């Protein structure tokens, strides 16, 4: 069982049809356990009950970057190995990554309101996540601008790789920009070392959310393959009618 065996879309469809229910079940279990543990976690002595937003916020923020990494690997698959399913994977991942980034921003601003007294702060970390969100949206716009999927795939792959090089630079420059404007920042995200009572639910939630991404990604890839089949059938029908 190698990656090249999955190049056949039919085999991919039959394999994922068998795997997906198990994945979905495991995701539900882990998220339920994680949510229960998060609800049972003690309140923070400074932040009170609002610290529980962390259990949703941090996995989302983590996945927002992880998904770009997955797309970069898929982009390499498109450009270097010409794997037939790589561009399907890249295309299916973009909206999911954008959703995770959006959720990270929303939960972050809901957390920021009671903690910092404001929904939005031009904090370095917030700003770079917002830019990441803009880049996801640009990538989705690129996918939607072109009808022919294989043509859009190569363009999107190059943009994804350029983004992967640029994201650390943007992160670094935004950090620099912010420290320049705010020398003594009072905004600190809790203590650096997490207590065990918080760490375990957080880890469970992180694994649960990662599994959620895998489940959604595989399901979206199946949809994309089926959508392409429908499209080519429609094209065949149209050309037959024209002839």
């Amino acid at each position, binding site marked *: 069982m190698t990656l090249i065996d999955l190049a056949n879309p039919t085999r991919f469809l039959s394999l994922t049809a068998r795997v997906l229910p198990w994945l979905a079940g495991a995701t539900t279990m882990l998220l339920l356990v994680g949510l229960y543990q998060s609800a049972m976690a003690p309140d923070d002595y400074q932040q009170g009950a609002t610290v529980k937003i962390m259990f949703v916020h941090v996995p989302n923020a983590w996945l927002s970057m992880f998904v770009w990494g997955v797309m970069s690997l898929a982009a390499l698959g498109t*450009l270097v190995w010409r794997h037939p399913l790589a561009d399907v994977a890249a295309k299916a991942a973009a909206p999911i990554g954008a959703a995770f980034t959006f959720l990270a921003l929303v939960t972050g601003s809901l957390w920021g309101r009671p903690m910092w007294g404001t929904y939005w702060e031009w904090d370095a970390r917030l700003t770079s996540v917002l*830019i990441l969100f*803009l*880049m996801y*949206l*640009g990538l989705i*716009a*690129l996918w939607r*601008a*072109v009808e022919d999927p294989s*043509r*859009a795939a*190569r*363009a999107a792959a*190059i*943009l994804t*790789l*350029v*983004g992967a*090089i*640029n994201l650390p*630079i*943007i992160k*670094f*420059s*935004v950090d*620099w*920009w912010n420290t*320049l404007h705010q020398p003594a920042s009072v905004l600190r995200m809790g203590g650096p070392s997490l207590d065990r009572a918080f760490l375990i639910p957080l880890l469970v939630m992180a694994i649960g959310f990662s599994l959620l991404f895998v489940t959604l990604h595989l399901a979206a890839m199946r949809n994309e393959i089926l959508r392409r089949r429908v499209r080519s059938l429609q094209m065949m029908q149209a050309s037959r009618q024209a002839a």
Partner: protein
Amino acid sequence: MTALAALIRRDIRIALRVGGGALIGVLFFLTVTVLMPFAIGPDLALLTRLGPAILWLGALLASLLTLDRLFMADHEDGSLDLIVMGRTPLELACAAKALAHWLAAGLPLVVATPVLGLLLNLDAAATSAVALTLLAGTPALTFTGMIGAALAVTLHRGGLLLAVLVLPLSIPVLIFGVAASQAAITGPLAFGTPFSILCALSLASLVIGPFAAAASLRHGLD
């Protein structure tokens, strides 16, 4: 080498002639800068404080608007296909085209900066600082923007899509360009630190830009 020099000469000549439109970028730069006081108000002290930021934003938008033509005109008359199939490495040809584009459209922005600085009540030191940062930073804008231009030409889309793809990538250049100008005018910070990072960004884009643009042309044109 002669092929690259000929390519640069040809591109500059086309850009400067009737229909080339390189100098429209400068006109746009001027217009945007003139619009700003209408939005902000004619408060000279405020304009002095915002001056570097206004000039940098204007230059960023002006260089973005002219990028559309970098590959589009060559694609329309077929010479882009010749360049892609030619014996000169496509990466070098892309770098030459971007260099020519910068000489025709980016350098005039730098030259126009002192006049525009006058309008924004910047003194000589501040104006020269902004001009110097623009001189160091606009190559980065052209060379990263070239990636977007190459993508746009292979997809037969331009305009807004190009802007949406390129603008987030130019954030670091904007940050360090404005930071260096501010450091020279007011800041306690040394001018050298952000300025050398700005130069580093330009040099890095000099490497990344041609490779990404050439890859996108090679994969995208058929």
